[in-house]
């Protein structure tokens, strides 16, 4: 049974509270022409679906919905594909329940 297509992550993220640090993303993707296998893995593995493929076939990140789990760091930081930090103090996801 494959249910993925019906799952809308955006709807899940809508429940959460965020304080977005506009213009200062805490995770960035290194410029590339062809994405590495690690970057491609993030398209599926990121639980907030922050990583998307653009029209040129490159992986892009939008950190606004990031829930700061660190999965992308574990997968793609060792290869230098991404730069990963914590958001500045007070910014990012603000869990009500956690």
């Amino acid at each position, binding site marked *: 049974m494959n*249910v993925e297509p019906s799952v809308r992550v955006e709807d899940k993220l809508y429940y959460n509270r965020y304080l977005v640090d506009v213009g200062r993303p805490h995770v960035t993707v290194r410029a590339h022409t062809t994405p590495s296998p690690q970057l491609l893995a993030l398209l599926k593995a990121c639980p907030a679906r922050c990583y998307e493929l653009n029209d040129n076939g490159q992986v892009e990140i939008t950190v606004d919905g990031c829930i700061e789990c660190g999965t992308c760091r574990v997968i793609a930081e060792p290869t230098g594909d991404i730069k990963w930090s914590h958001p500045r103090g007070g910014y990012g996801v603000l*869990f009500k329940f956690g």
Partner: protein
Amino acid sequence: MIEERFDAIVVGAGMAGNAAALTMAKHGMNVLQLERGEYSGSKNVQGAILYADMMEKLIPEFREEAPLERHLVEQRFWMMDDRSHVGMHYRSDDFNEERPNRYTIIRAQFDKWFSSKVREAGATVLCETTVTELVRDHHERIVGVRTDRRDGEIHADVVVLAEGVNGLLGTRAGLRPRPTPDNVALAVKEMHFLPRETIEARFNLKGDEGVVIEAAGTISRGMTGMGFIYANKECISLGIGCLVADFQRTGQTPYGMLDHFKQHPSVAPLIAGSEVKEYAAHLIPEGGYKAIPQLYGDGWVVVGDAAQLNNAIHREGSNLAMTSGRIAAEAIAQVKSRREPMTAKNLLLYKEMLDESFVIKDLKKYKDMPTLMHTHSQNFFLTYPQLISKALQNFVRVDGTPKVEKEKATLKSFVKARSWTGLFGDACRFARAWR
């Protein structure tokens, strides 16, 4: 911002950090705790179960004050295939005791309260402050931290790294390796709200009684993973986690797996009609004993998830966190009371004390389990759950087939799937890793 010098700086306000800050403050030390969230708890994610014994050692009267959800009277283990579950339930009225043993909690709320106790004990707690770097002297000793606040360099005799599973400071400073995809699991979780009476009816509970369900099987689609369902007072925490290496390898999505788990015929009725109010994700250290890094050095110690202190088999983490935080703090207080410097040689005391505690003893017991579960995940999380489900269905379904033939069919299905050597090998491997 802060001109002062501290006896100790604690980075992070989770279970380990709060336990460390509280204990050192109670010993009369001048403690600064730094937390990047807007309040202590706002970045913390857990199932969550609180273990009373370890909490009592920190705050004996916590039951009267802390925001607790339900005390657990029942534990259910479910082995699931796509349409069924084989369950082992343990419920006892013994757990309805004066000082209950385990509680469900909501971490953001509990940690906020825990932090208030840290402040009461005299520690300075500074939130909305991300520590960006450790500061070293010319002997390479850790002597403080740099933060993202202006003029944010602060000095202390010792830094307690309670920075969680994603702790950047320790890895950036080369004190320990970054977690690898095969020693951390990614768990995703939703909070499902329902009227209190509905939860009590669906889970067969009265008053503040609670229940947890731990589930494994085909829900993780052959990956090393677990699902969980915890009953709180007015909500249900429901989630599922798998090794990051498995997500990477298979291309399964965490939210797809979560929704699949929610739609399972054994799960869906429990959460029917609920209102979801939060979606969270978190990494869980799963590497066990063999993944524990160097725990101390000149001017620093590492505690909790940052030190990979998590018992994946028993699903215990927060108690190992708070115990390691407390023990590190006690070791530091001892060194300080002897008026000795916070060198690696003196802070070895922390490791020695931790080795003597249940934290390291338990992790040592299961040191081979993570590898076994990972390398044989197809068998333990897919093949066996399916076989056992079929065997039990065969056992309970009455259809005129003679029992002897039923038993033969069941045995045949096991041998066909795993072969005699495979079955024997799996049993031996499991027994050896458990021992």
